[in-house]
């Protein structure tokens, strides 16, 4: 027992620089977001606010148009996650269950799509969106364009995660369902999918988070304030302004970040298993 205590101290000591570096920005966000404007720009600056100003969050909600941006982020992230899962689930099932010809090729294709990050294609992506008629104009400045491209760029990750989990679901269960007269698709629906629910949920949440956090595509495709997401909205509060109201910006980043961080903290251990399994299989 004593040995473990000693080891714990060493481990924490070794990790301490990293822990400080990770928590530093959270501390900056937290303390700045509660400072009154008059305390943000005083020299020498101090860490803790003298007066805790909760009103900042109310002001930020107005200044950042936070409600609208929040709704856009939720809509775009949810729909793109749904679309990505809808196409990735069958593909992951095929990869995990059928050793078909061209399987390696398909996996290589996924790796290539990982390589082509949206930012590399952004010039062409913009033209693609401008070319497709939608509503009164085209897909530029519409949420649909963003949703479809997020879904497409998340396929590789989703298939990767899902198929690695699917491989751990015992085949025998499905096969015994066939023997009892269940059709192949029936067995998938009634036996396989219920077992795969946790994997699907975890993958969905990570896909959601990556869409929530994406920047380059929305930044390029979305122009009007009523379609902007949180990441773009926060960047707009900072970029190209003479005076940045940092206390409001920090309140906005903290409000946009904290819910996602909490969910992520709760789920990160599933990530370790899934990614590693999918990677070197």
């Amino acid at each position, binding site marked *: 027992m004593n040995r473990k205590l000693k080891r*714990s101290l060493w481990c924490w000591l070794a990790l301490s620089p*990293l822990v400080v570096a990770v928590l530093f*920005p959270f501390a900056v966000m937290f303390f700045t977001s509660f400072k009154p404007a008059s305390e943000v720009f005083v*020299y020498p600056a101090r860490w803790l606010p003298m007066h805790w100003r909760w009103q900042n969050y109310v002001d930020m909600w107005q200044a950042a148009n936070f409600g609208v941006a929040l709704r856009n982020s939720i809509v775009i992230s949810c729909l793109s996650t749904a679309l990505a899962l809808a*196409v990735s689930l*069958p593909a992951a099932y095929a990869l995990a269950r059928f050793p078909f010809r*061209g399987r390696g090729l398909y996996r290589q294709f996924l790796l290539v799509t990982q390589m082509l990050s949206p930012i590399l294609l952004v*010039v062409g992506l913009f033209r693609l969106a401008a070319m497709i008629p939608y509503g009164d104009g085209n897909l530029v400045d519409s949420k649909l364009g963003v949703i479809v491209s997020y879904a497409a760029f998340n396929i590789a990750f989703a298939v990767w995660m899902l198929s690695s989990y699917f491989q751990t679901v015992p085949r025998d269960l499905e096969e015994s369902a066939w023997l009892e007269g269940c059709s192949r698709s029936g067995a998938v629906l009634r036996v396989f999918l219920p077992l795969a629910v946790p994997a699907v949920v975890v993958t969905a949440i990570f896909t959601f988070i990556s869409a929530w956090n994406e*920047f380059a595509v929305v930044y390029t495709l979305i122009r009007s304030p009523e379609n902007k997401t949180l990441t773009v909205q926060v960047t707009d509060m900072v970029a190209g302004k003479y005076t940045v109201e940092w206390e409001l910006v920090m309140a906005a980043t903290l409000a946009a*970040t904290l819910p996602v961080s909490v969910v992520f903290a709760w789920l990160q251990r599933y990530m370790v298993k899934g990614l590693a399994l999918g990677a070197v299989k």
Partner: protein
Amino acid sequence: MTLGPLKQTPPAGPASGKAPEPTRATNRMSRSQRAVAVPRAPWLLILPSLVLALFIISYPIFNIVYQSLHDVSRFGQIRGFSGLQNFYNVFSDPVFLSALQNTLIWTFCVVVGTVLISVPVALILNQDFYGRGVARTIVMLPWSVSLTMTAVVWRWAFNDDYGMVNVTLQRLGVIAGPIHWLATPQYAFPVEIAVGILVSIPFTTTILLGGLSSVPGDIYEAARIDGASAWQQFRRLTLPLLKPFINMAILLNVIYVFNSFPIIWVMTQGGPDDSTHILVTYLYELGFRLGRPGEAAAVSLVMLVILFVFSVAYLRVQSKRGGGAEGDLA
């Protein structure tokens, strides 16, 4: 492609259609006629994902090639074929050359720094100690934050007079007066590299932890009985077993870091004096700020070629050196 320990059943007969690779294509399937009867099923299952991915990727690639060979107005009007003029313009732009150089420095430093920090961090997090769950969560935390938000916060933290970095360093007596971190070319880029390393650690550590969890514990037991020191255990056992995971982490990190846009764009927008531009920020500025989409497309293509050559070369070298599973990242 290693499929894991599949049972070696005798190959099924011609009933399974073409049966191209009998040993693995049919071993388990042969138990059920239903599965064998539908060789097209897997293709139908992957079709939707293939179509969606190809749709979003192929046209933009085609369009980038097209734009890079044409004279394009700032509003995207094609004004005529211009051959390699866009490439010529780009290559003779000193900003492009410095951005190219910066990209190599940026990618190299961030990836190497990340791996050098992540290996010990993963080893520590794989130990059994009090508060390990909390420690893992903290190390993973930067992953959950949008790169954009991270960059915004660090930009404020590195503010000259009011930022918490200068305040803290002054309190601790490390520096005498405020340092103009982001306004000084010598400091701005290293600061961005440091932020880049910090946000890349969670992903890398995750992969390495996955690798460590697949290492059986009893080999260490055996090594200890044989009198191997901790360092020898690391050199002779852990490192070789981790190698495929480190390789994959390097490959994926190179791809991500090479393409990483928000950190530099938000923190310095390529400034001061274009000194922190990397290719992606340069590309974005050409395409959407300076109104030169043709040249931006040319930069995109140059980047695609670099990435492609790197990935192929890397996978080739790895599979030649390691063979087996190591070349099998795809």
